[in-house]
């Protein structure tokens, strides 16, 4: 008996009892669907986060005051939190450590920015002229402020795209106009390109020289963060070490600042993802085990029900192996079918969830292949015992079975 005939006979046997076949497959369907859906959503979210971090420029190390737990956004200001000062930036610039390409500072405050009768509450970022290069975020219209404007603490501003659109009829009109932010009036010299980082709209920001912010807006010398960009990825480690030493020397206490390597963040995320994958694997394992037991159960029932058929097939010349294969193929087909339905269902579920939430879904081909092969494997494994029972039936007893 060749494979295509065995397959045909298995298909007709599965179709002859549709409800039962479906219920049997349900365990596999649910297991596979959940793993496909969860890995798709998980992978999508991970890619998104990694993309966000990458979109903010590469090869970066950020120094912030306080102790960080190594997770983005989890910096905890410890005693004497505001320890970074403008002079540290200047010293760092003067030091000229090899491999460090750019150094920028960023202070973020929230202000209401107005032009005429329009006003928006937005983030105002005081920074240095290298910001666009380091953050990989460029000016679209006009220009960014330069070193001279920084040194002179001039009243100039570069608007994020969204802010420009909110305040003016079109971004082009913004150039040369005077806007108010807090106590100062600044001339718009540029508008940034449109960009978003994941769920965050980077257009809702206004950039001014850090010196202008410190002298005219907040009156504070402290700095919220210093970001260093190295020439290459290989320079990151030495730069991290250098920064640790540099700030330990200046601040006299390693507890008062944190050096956050972008790579560390990515590693942390990958670690979290890895743990999640492990969890998913365990869940899939359990549900496929349950599904497999369901299949074995039904195959045993099926063997009993079809005792006479088995007897007859043997009487007319089926070898034990032919019977074994027939039942193994049937159970594998059943679980493979369940696997396929599960994959389709999983894709649909992940698409639906990502449509109604902000989680992106990336259907992973790997996950599909693995889920499918495991489901076929489960059918094979749990099908063998019932199939062996069938193949070893005594034809005489089987033919007489009522």
């Amino acid at each position, binding site marked *: *008996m060749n494979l295509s005939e065995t397959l045909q006979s298995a298909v*007709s046997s599965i179709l002859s009892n549709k409800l039962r076949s479906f219920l049997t497959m349900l365990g596999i369907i649910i297991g596979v669907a959940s793993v496909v859906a969860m890995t798709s959503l998980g992978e999508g979210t991970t890619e998104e986060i990694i993309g966000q971090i990458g979109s903010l420029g590469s090869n970066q190390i950020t120094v912030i005051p306080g102790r960080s737990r190594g997770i983005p956004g989890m910096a905890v200001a410890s005693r004497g939190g505001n320890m970074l000062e403008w002079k540290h930036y200047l010293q760092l610039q003067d030091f000229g450590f090899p491999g460090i390409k750019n150094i920028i500072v960023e202070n973020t405050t929230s202000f209401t920015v107005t032009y005429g009768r329009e006003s928006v509450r937005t983030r105002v970022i005081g920074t240095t002229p290298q910001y666009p290069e380091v953050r990989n975020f460029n000016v679209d219209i006009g220009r960014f402020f330069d070193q001279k404007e920084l040194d002179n603490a001039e009243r100039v501003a570069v608007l994020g795209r969204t802010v420009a659109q909110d305040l003016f009829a079109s971004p082009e009109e913004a150039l040369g106009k005077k806007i108010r932010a807090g106590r100062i009036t600044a001339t718009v010299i540029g508008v940034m390109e449109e960009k978003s980082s994941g769920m965050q709209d980077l257009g809702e920001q206004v950039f001014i020289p850090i010196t202008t912010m410190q002298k005219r807006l907040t009156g504070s010398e402290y700095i919220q963060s210093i970001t260093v960009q190295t020439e290459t990825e290989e320079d990151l480690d030495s730069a991290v070490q250098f920064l640790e030493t540099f700030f330990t020397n200046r601040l006299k206490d390693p507890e008062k600042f944190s050096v956050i390597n972008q790579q560390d963040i990515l590693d942390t995320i990958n670690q979290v993802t890895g743990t999640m994958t492990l969890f998913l694997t365990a869940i899939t394992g359990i549900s496929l085990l349950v599904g497999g037991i369901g299949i074995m159960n039904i195959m045993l029932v099926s063997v009993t029900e079809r005792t*006479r*058929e088995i007897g*007859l*097939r043997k*009487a*007319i*010349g089926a070898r034990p192996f032919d019977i074994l294969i027939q039942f193994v193929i049937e159970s594998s087909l059943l679980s493979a079918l369940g696997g396929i339905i599960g994959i389709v269902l999983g894709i649909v579920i992940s698409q639906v969830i990502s449509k109604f939430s902000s989680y992106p879904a990336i259907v992973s081909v790997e996950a599909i292949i693995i889920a499918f092969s495991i489901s076929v494997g489960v059918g094979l494994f749990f099908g063998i015992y019932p199939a062996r029972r069938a193949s070893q039936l005594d034809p*005489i007893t089987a033919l007489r079975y009522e």
Partner: protein
Amino acid sequence: MNQPVIKVEDLWKIYQLGEVQVEALRGVSFEIEGGEFIAIMGPSGSGKSTLMNILGCLDRPTRGRYFLDGQEVSQLNENQLAQVRNKKIGFVFQSFNLLPRLTALQNVELPLIYAGLSLQKRKERAMESLEAVGLEERVRHYPNQLSGGQQQRVAIARALVNNPSIILADEPTGNLDTRSSEEIMHVLQKLNREGKTIVLVTHERDIASHAHRILHFRDGQLVDNENVEQPLEALAVLKELTEEKVVESV
């Protein structure tokens, strides 16, 4: 020169049922020539079913030898027996044993699938076989769309399809009314005239009388070898039945 199709020598079958030994066959010997129509008769417990199973290569004797077509088959392993059943034996059962999900044609094809024939060849041979039992009009029907007699004829077609050395019919008329029984006997007699060797197991004298020779069994032994002088012609009986009906309806 004419080698017997079946030759059994001193066949014993002993079952061990717990402490008790049951001797189902006790030294049975006989020969069946090619082209014979043999009936095996005996009350229940006479060992005729056990003999049938051994002749059909579904079971092996405890002792003794069994030659089928000159080949000693009593000590073959399970796979070899399966092959012998496939190639040399055609079974007809009391309860037809057709697979309900398959059409008449597909049921008849089944032995050829295990013989490894191509789809084309199988269809041809199965058609020929169904024609031989007069069911060429019913090839696409499923068993539940056929009468009992027709189902048994499909089963006979299935038994024929591999061109076996013998056809073993185990109470083939046991589930049928008189008329259908005679129809089945008519098919078997026709096949016999065409050269098939037929071994029929029955406990009904009327049915056994259609054979050329009757082997009587009792308590696991062959007790009588009766030659039937004038075998019953199924066709004649059928005609009679039809006339009776006509008379009744008049």
